[in-house]
């Protein structure tokens, strides 16, 4: 199994397209960990990460992150992530309740922190992931080596 850590927090669109290219969107796979890997105590508790175990190995899902091939924007900066999953559809097909504190930020000791909520680790099939997977909305640019 591999472990998807999915960003599950709404963020308003950024007016700068370059900035927008680097942002995490709801449904983006932030990291793909190996089977059973601990995602971090904050990740398990915070309200804006969804943790889903999927069949296969982490290396099988490299396309879900920007690791390879990297795609550059107009400032020679790689896109943050290539794939966005439809989290709403995924939650519906998996029978998982949406995270209530999806957008919450709390103030603790004067600093902003993620609102805490236990995040369940759920198991999905390849069909679940395939059904929720979007295609990249931009062409796969060739690498430019200066």
């Amino acid at each position, binding site marked *: 199994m591999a472990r998807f*850590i999915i*960003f599950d*927090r709404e*963020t308003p669109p*950024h007016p700068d397209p*370059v*900035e*927008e*290219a*680097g*942002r*995490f969107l709801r449904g983006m796979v*932030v*990291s793909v*960990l190996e089977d059973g*890997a*601990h*995602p*971090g*105590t*904050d*990740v398990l508790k*915070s309200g*804006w*990460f969804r943790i889903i175990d999927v069949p296969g190995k982490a290396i099988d899902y490299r396309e879900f*992150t*920007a*690791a*390879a*091939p*990297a795609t550059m924007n107009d*400032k020679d*900066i*790689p896109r*943050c992530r290539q794939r966005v999953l439809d989290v709403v559809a995924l939650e519906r097909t998996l029978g998982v309740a949406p995270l209530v504190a999806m957008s919450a*930020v709390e103030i603790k000791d*004067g*600093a*902003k*922190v*993620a609102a805490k909520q236990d995040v369940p680790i759920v198991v999905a099939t390849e069909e679940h992931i395939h059904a929720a997977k979007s295609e990249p909305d931009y062409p796969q640019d060739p*690498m430019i*080596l*200066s």
Partner: protein
Amino acid sequence: MTTKTIGTASRDYATITLWLAYLQGIGAPSADEIGELYNDSEFAEEVVFSSLPTPTGGAKYILRPATGQAMMDSTANPATYDQTKGVAWKDASGYFPVPCSQTSAVPFLFERLQIKSGRVTVDGAGAANTDVHRCLLQCPSPLPSNASTNADAVFRNCIFVWTTDGSGNPNQGHIASVFDSAQAYACTFARYSDKTAGTGNNGVVKQYSGTGTNIKNSIFANLSACWPAAFTPTHSYNATDLSAFPQAEATGLTSIVLTDTFESPSSSSPDFRVKSGASVIGAGVADATNYPVDFYGTTRANPPTIGAIEGPAGGGSQPIIKRFGVFQAINRAASF
């Protein structure tokens, strides 16, 4: 100030990217946000520090090893990173050299990181922002620039080394000034003595446009040029093994000798500590904009040694802690 631990042993976040997502999620912080790396992991990620909200009240983002976490590597083969020994950062794919990119005009401090097989790209938008301090950047040639900065990014006490023969026109390690100042203070830019340079643009500084690039107290060793002659950075108190700098530098050292300057500049036994009696010792100038310590955390002499590593005090040999070589140990506290 909020400190989050990063590593695979049940830290706050398993990857740097997850910490990044957290930072984006909380919105603009009003106090420093610190990510402290533990050597549970090699952090084989391509991390793009863009789109982070600008902190308020003078706060900044900081990424560094946690206290007691050493950045270590094999002296025998620096191209092989030993995950059990330290905190480093490499290109996950092995061929695309962007493990680290900071493109927002937000203040960021990268400290004591080892970045392999790639480059750190810091690209502000005119606001003072990124400081890369006491980092080791290794890059095989002919990949694109080892280090690239735009707009006010500053490299201090860093070592940049190219680990393979050069070829073509790789634009190695340019410090670019596009909109505003980009600076390198007390850095060592070097190619192994047994490796060859490429055919063009092998210098370190490439100032595309604008003004304000400043290079001071830095060594340029075994490169085919310091910077293209057409560009005119402000430069002083530097040292090179070339016969001359592209523009006159009354206070610099030219024609330094690699084997007289470094303990061992060869790829078979890399060690860029400065030899006792080297001409670069005490040849720099104290600078209020520099950090008070060198690559290892040693307090700088006044006047300081040119380059990233302070020379042996009083003409003696390096302290024993440093005899393991530059690639093996940066075993200091996270802050100084």
